[in-house]
């Protein structure tokens, strides 16, 4: 694998294609950032049930509130005498044992919205009262960085995550890196997108077209000769994380990769559906981390999961759970301080039937910005937030 990579890089750098492989190898995103660090963001779309993800199995109140959808104490992947992972997250056990998995508990924000859209917007813009033109927290971060023509990549067939929308940057979004090719008369197609246009939307479309043609050319080069795909689970998330690993290894140049796993809105009969989703998540993340280590990339990569909200403590009568509030986030990487960060929110001191958050989600963002990407979190988030000591 190492030989493959070296051969590939040497070949690519020597060949005329080197012009499309940029000089990002030694380029820091921000001054003081040491080694081309990368952030991989995993969105759990729909409101992941945090209580059945990191299960407070040692708490009677949990079992009382969830006689139908709860996870039995004997089934969890035990983390300690109180916390356990959902049994479908067994794929993360190795990462946990290596100290490369951190769990940030009780994450949320004040006056939480229970609307998927409002709350997702809040998480993505990092503002509880977004005003004017909406930009995402990472879009604003990347706006501040210089000299990266493809600063981030969104690997998902759905719309570009608002987290990646900036004033200046156009982040490419691709459904499947393998099929990202242009058909037809490439020169003619590119030529009609050359001329700058007036009109915001029109110029946005034109820049997206140009970015698409450029990205297609570069992805094709980067994915050539990749190996190791077979180790990943045969799921969309597994395939996308393989492609992320491969693009990082090949020096694609993006510093933020965003993927999405959807379907977490489990209002009814949630048990099997949620277990399946967590299995997809755990297996893909576990394999990804192992693969990064094998490719000698793990020191450069931090992976973070989030969801727009958790779910209500008490299950509903449809064997599901309704929209709730605070939930845990996973952080994963060889450079992090693994383990539990913060206490599990109380299952008895609730706010309208929901868990009370004790840590603002922007504290997690601030930690990533200050201690991983080495940038001024205040400039991005509008104010200072206390970091969480996972970095």
């Amino acid at each position: 694998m190492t030989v493959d990579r070296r051969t590939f890089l040497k070949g690519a750098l020597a060949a005329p294609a080197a012009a499309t492989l940029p000089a990002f190898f030694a380029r820091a995103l921000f001054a003081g950032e040491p080694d081309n660090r990368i952030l991989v963001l995993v969105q759990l779309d729909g409101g992941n049930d945090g209580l059945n993800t990191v299960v407070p199995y040692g708490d009677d109140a949990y079992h009382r509130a969830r006689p139908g959808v709860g996870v039995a104490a004997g089934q969890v992947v035990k983390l300690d005498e109180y916390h356990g992972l959902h049994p479908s997250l067994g794929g993360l056990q190795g990462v946990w044992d290596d100290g490369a998995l951190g769990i940030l508990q009780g994450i949320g924000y004040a006056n939480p919205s229970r609307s998927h859209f409002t709350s997702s917007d809040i998480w993505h813009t990092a503002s509880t009262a977004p005003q004017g033109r909406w930009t995402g927290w990472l879009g604003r971060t990347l706006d501040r960085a210089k000299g990266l023509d493809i600063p981030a990549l969104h690997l998902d067939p759905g719309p570009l995550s608002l987290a990646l929308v900036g004033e200046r940057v156009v982040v490419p979004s691709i459904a499947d890196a393998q099929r990202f090719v242009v058909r037809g008369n490439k020169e003619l197609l590119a030529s009609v997108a050359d001329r700058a246009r007036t009109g915001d939307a029109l110029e946005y479309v034109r820049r997206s077209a140009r970015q698409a043609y450029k990205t297609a050319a570069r992805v094709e080069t980067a994915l050539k000769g990749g190996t190791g795909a077979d180790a990943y689970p045969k799921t969309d998330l597994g395939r996308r994380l393989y492609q992320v690993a491969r693009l990082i290894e090949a020096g694609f140049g993006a510093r933020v990769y965003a993927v999405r796993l959807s379907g977490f809105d489990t209002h009814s009969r949630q048990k099997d559906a949620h277990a399946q989703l967590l299995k997809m998540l755990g297996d893909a993340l576990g394999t990804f981390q192992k693969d990064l280590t094998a490719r000698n990339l793990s020191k450069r990569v931090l992976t973070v999961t989030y969801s727009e909200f958790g779910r209500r403590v008490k299950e509903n009568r449809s064997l599901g759970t309704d929209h709730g509030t605070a939930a845990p986030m996973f952080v994963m990487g060889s450079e992090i301080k693994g383990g539990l960060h913060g206490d599990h929110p109380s299952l008895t001191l609730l706010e309208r039937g929901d868990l009370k958050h004790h840590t603002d989600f922007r504290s997690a963002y601030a930690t990533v910005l200050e201690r991983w990407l080495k940038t001024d979190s205040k400039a991005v988030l509008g104010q200072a937030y206390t970091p969480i000591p996972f970095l």
Partner: protein
Amino acid sequence: MHSELKPFTPSRAHPFDFGAAGHLWQRAAFGGSFDAITETAARSPREAVAALVDGPGDDPEERGLDSIWEAVLGGGDADGLRAWLIARQARCAHQVREKIALFWHSHFATSLLKVRKVDWMARQYRLFLRHGLGTFETLLRAVTRDPAMIRWLDNETNAKGHANENYGRELLELFTLGDGNYTEKDIKEASRAFTGWHILNDRYHFSKTLHDAGVKTVLGKTGPFGGDDVIRIALDQEACGRFLATKLLRFFVTPKPDAEVAASLGKEMRRNGYHLSATLKLLFGSRYFFDRKNRGGMIKSPIEYVVGAARAFQVKLDGGAAVPALRHMGQDLLAPPNVAGWPGHNEWINTASWLARVNGIRNLVTSPSVSLTQAGRALLGDRVPQTEIDRLQKSGASKRDLAHALLALPEAHMS
């Protein structure tokens, strides 16, 4: 009424010309052919709008498509149904009805991925075709009793003593009022009114025993309300008119509607009983609609792009081939991304969807039956300088590549 909603009166500075008529076809319909736009431009705006909204009396294309309806449904194949719907959009003469049906599909945003019954989805879409231009109340009452909707928002498990809030929440948040115009308490109480609205043998069934007939307080009104009462109460809110008007404006006119215009249109809607064809005639005939600032600045949805291309180039769209292409472009009919429908506007375009558009259209518009010049005019109006078109024509590329390049112009993705 807001002055911007007054009728558009053509002048020398703002004529009702080919460009303006093309704009009407792009927005109110799925685009027109060169001949259709030319014909429209010869009428007054008022006549042109009325003709489009009312549609022709008889349409052989529609009769033809209706005649294969049973076969489409009997196949039980979702892509077959999608292809049938797309064929309607491409060929039916009553274009506004097809367009408003698509609007309602995105508004009510029910997905086959959860409903899992093609015939239920078909029945719901037919509600949009049947009631889409009538009153919103009739439509909403029908949709609330629609099995696909009941399953989609879990109302089957909504019963006395243990309400499931999903329908009550989305009714207020997404269908009538918008976030911020109701309280969590309103949702809980409204949900009680829909308890017992279930499905039996593939049909709506009201279960009296599971219905909570008790007194509820919803949006300040108190009484032993049933579902239809809650619908009426929601529709009586000023917020409802404004919310629907804003959505219509965002779909047909501009991504950023003027708040005062939206409020005024909302007021008109409440006044006309939320009658859609009256509302659309007012809107499409308004100064606001034809204002130059509202022309050429909207990003087309994939369906608008593909169907519009077929209509401009006068090719018979292969519905079966269009369905997977549209899916790659980000618009899979009957499977909107979530309960809020397709977000639209800038979110239609990213590098992935761009490549899907440019790659997909190449195989859908292969042998135009009109000249490239006429197709280009129908598609682009006067929005691309003639020098650019001339440069393309002189490039020596094949006719197919030239048609492809026209469709890869950023302007071809705008209306």
